[in-house]
């Protein structure tokens, strides 16, 4: 598996603090090793062909987009997914 980074993703990554960056880094490493690892919650976004989400903290996700190459995904953006989840 490979990941190509988008300009938006890189910009959003630079805006994160050190702890968050570390979590993104860990998630990307894990994804390259084992995309289906349960901690990543790697899943298709319903209603959006070729889009996937990858979890890097309980409430934050990376948006991945499939490409014409089966083993290559684009990391398009990242950010908070679920503020709701954090208060349950």
């Amino acid at each position, binding site marked *: 598996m490979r990941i190509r980074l988008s300009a938006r993703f890189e910009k959003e990554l630079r805006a994160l*603090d050190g702890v968050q960056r570390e979590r993104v880094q860990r998630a990307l490493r894990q994804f390259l090793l084992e995309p289906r690892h349960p901690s990543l919650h790697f899943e298709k976004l319903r*209603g959006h062909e070729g889009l996937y989400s990858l979890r890097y903290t309980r409430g934050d996700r990376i948006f991945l987009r499939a490409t014409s190459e089966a083993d290559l995904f684009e990391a398009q953006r990242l950010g908070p997914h679920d503020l*709701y989840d954090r*208060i349950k």
Partner: protein
Amino acid sequence: MGALEMGIAGLPSAQVPSIRDMQAVAASLADAALSDSALQLRRIAAEMRLHVRDIERELAEHRRMARSIRQIVASSTDEEVDAAVDELLRQERMLREAWEQTARLCRRLEAKARQLRPATYPLARQITTTAERWYRPYLQFLRDLRWEIMALQTERAPPADGPVLASSSDVGAYFRKLPQPS
């Protein structure tokens, strides 16, 4: 001016009225926590039930408008979409804060009712469950709408042209080269 600047799916760009209502009820709860008046608890419970009905109507209207979100995003610029996403996130954060404050007060009310006037405990519980019915669907709606908009924007994003990471060591090397967080 694009559609998104006027408000995503009918959401005003300023404050969602329901959030203001929630903050007002949280203030009433704070007062109630200082007294043990069953009458006051009854009044708050009744007020909250009315708010829930208002919210259900408001949400139904937002959901109806959100059905055309694909078209709205398609006719908006990336800057407009980014502004709408930021605004929805801001509203989610405000709502979450109001919810956390309310949940804290509800717990205090319940504890006090249990300790001082057990007969009022069911009323205090009723307030908690009504508050939950109030906040959760709104937070979920804002979250789902924001997430949907982000997905629609990602669908049309140009192909990524940055570095390719193919191994754990690539990831490590990339992160080591990043400028330090400010």
